């Protein structure tokens, strides 16, 4: 029995739409899942983030806090190929709206200025990851090999990209299925 390539997917600063679009592959999912071994993923919901010997690391979402930054670096270190899914991972996406403000201004506007209810406090647990000064696309943090934009990318374009990779080719998304929205 041949060893199936290990695929890990992570969900960073994004809305889960890319993963939903992946699930929207419907019966084609069976075809894909037959050819890969899905390890860490919001879909499997394993909590341990063991990325070892990943062939293909897939990232949904932009990088906006220290934890996400670390996940991206670890996934890159462990993966032969990294694919960015969706506008947030590829361009930064809707999250970059916050780049007009500093993290301090955001926390103030979100948690300090609005009147808090009785017993409520602004989140200040030291385990909470800190916001980065700006939200950025994944390829501004680590090298990305394959970009699949779209908000969300259509099941069709995800299927195409995965199919090319599993077939040993580098995907070049044809203009008719390439889209940014």
């Amino acid at each position, binding site marked *: 029995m041949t060893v199936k390539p290990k695929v890990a997917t992570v969900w960073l600063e994004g809305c889960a739409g890319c993963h939903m679009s992946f699930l929207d592959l419907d019966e084609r999912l069976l075809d894909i899942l037959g050819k890969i071994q899905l390890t860490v993923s919001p879909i499997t919901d394993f909590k341990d983030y063991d990325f070892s010997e990943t062939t293909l690391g897939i990232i949904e979402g932009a990088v906006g806090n220290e934890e996400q930054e670390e996940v991206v670096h670890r996934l890159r270190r462990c993966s032969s190929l990294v694919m*960015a899914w969706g*506008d947030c991972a*590829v*361009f*930064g*996406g*809707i999250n*970059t*709206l916050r*780049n*007009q403000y500093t993290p301090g201004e955001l926390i103030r506007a979100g948690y300090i200025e609005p009147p808090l209810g009785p017993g409520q406090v602004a989140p200040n647990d030291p385990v909470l990851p800190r916001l980065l000064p*700006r939200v*950025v*696309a994944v*390829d*501004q943090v680590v090298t*990305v090999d394959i*970009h*699949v*934009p779209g*908000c969300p990318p259509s099941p069709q374009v995800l299927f195409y990209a995965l199919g090319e990779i599993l077939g040993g080719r580098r995907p*070049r*998304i*044809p*203009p008719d299925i*390439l*889209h*940014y*929205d």
Partner: protein
Amino acid sequence: MDNKASISLRIDGRDVTVDEGATILDAARQAGIRIPTLCHHPALPPYGGCRLCVVEVDGAPRLAASCVMPVRAGMDVVTVNERILETRKTVLEFLFSERPHHCMVCSQSGDCELQSLAYEHGLDHFEVPGLNDEFPLDTTHPDLVLDHNRCVLCGRCVRACRDVAGNMVLDFHNRGGRAMIGADLSDQLGQSSCVSCGLCLQVCPTGALYLRHRTHYAVGGKARDRRSVPSVCPSCGLLCPTVNEVLSDHLIRITTPWDNPGAAQGQLCRKGRLDPFRELGPRLSRPMIRNEEGEWAETSEEEAQAAAGRLLAGWIRNHGRSTLFGLISGRRSNEEAAAFRRFMTIALEGARIDTLAGNAFRNLSRLEETGVRGEPPIEAAGEADFLLFLGDGFAQSHPILLSLARKARLDHGAPLIVLGPKNPLGPWASIHLSASASETKNLLNRLANGEAGNDNLEEVRIVAQAWAEARHPLLVLSPEYLAASDPGILHAALALAGRKRTEGKDAGVVPLRPEGNSAGLWGVGAASTEPWNEPERFRGGLVVLDGDELPDADETRALAAAEALAVITPYQIPTWMEKAAVLLPTPTLMEIEGHFASYDGGRSVFKTRVRPAPQGVRPLEDTLALVEDHLRSALKARSDAGGRPMWMEASS
């Protein structure tokens, strides 16, 4: 035709022969070879700003912008290779990086040339990160929005505004990375000298300039989902062809073919391009009658038609028909006018029939009888060397004249003179004399007999001087003067032009009809040749509207004491609702098909329907036929209305 020398060159290994002076892009297009472009637009002068169209010429290290580079004999052009594609990708990346282009949240997505070019070039990511800064959004204009966040500084709008429309409102402001499109001296669009011709909307490749009325339909409003309905604009009688983009029965955009044979290439005025998006009031989609308290209430179609029938029948029984009238808007189609005429001559026989602003018709038809007429076409305004605007209503009735006037000024230095309360030409007017009707008539007479040359007012002396020098002057008579009860200004203008013609000059008077299809309605006999005789004695009848058109002075007097008035209208217009007892809905011009005549009645075209009328809104012809049925049966039935007021009769 000037005979240009032919030039032969090679493009991608093919021999191509073009006229001298052609650009490489022209030559490639002629040979069916596609070169991507962005700032280039076939209807505008070339600019060479974006560099997307680069090609390799004779293997030179520096690529050339094909949209501006003229061909030379023996040139060897390559339009695609690795280096060219990389350059184009870089150009696109830089364009994206200069403004915050977030296609994922952009309502233009799917209908944007920048985006299509990026798709075409397989740009699946950007190495130059995009901007997150926010650029200004100018929403001060009633019709246009300028969103600098989407602008790529291609300058198409600048060239359209300056070189085609002749308005010179838009231009580049600042330089380099700070360059921005701006209006006038960095004014907000709403406070600028913009005349709302909307030409810039038709050329902007990204939708940085867009029509504000369409925004909330724009989400998902992708070009591929739309229908394009060819039609014509019936608003002023020039009958410009239009292309109407419709998305599930919503109007998204109106454009005109660039070879529009009408007044000006590619141009539509505010009336053709923008007004159809304006609602002139709340839409009347169900009939309304007054209830017992005299307040407006919606009712069934049957009930409203019956109420209109009873109302008119009741009046006829008690007072006869001679105090009733029927008025129809000069915007409705010939077919609708014919149905209206039939209704008036059969069902309301004996009542007065007229169009709104019917005095205009009578003033003109009296001229025809005396053989004085012979009017130049409106388009002649662009060729005149002296333009005298009598009254200021032309800017409302025929906004295209604003463009033609500027053209006349720019092309042959024609003095533009406005005699009227307001100056719609703004700074373009050479002289504006804020003259009343009688002052205007007076001045025309004095120009005719040569007295104006030694007037006390310097402006008047200048006008007299310019008039004396003009070789083919044109006088444009605004509709308010054409429809005046006293046609004195029309006659004075004709006399003045006639005097000029005796000097062998080519002078003319253009009398502007109040509405687009006025001539068509007069042609089907919807106007009366008899003047209103004691208009105050009238008490009601039937009015067919399109929107906000106005009655002339005599009609206003006839409407003043209306007691039994049924109004058929697409909108709930307060001034008419004050007078009416019954309101019946009817389609707008966008929702009907039919024939419309050109302003002078010389030409008639068929206008297609752009979108369907709302559910339950019948064609005017049907509504009139149904009211006629009810009117007949009400006249037959003997019922006693007692001494109740007429509006109660309508609601009983």
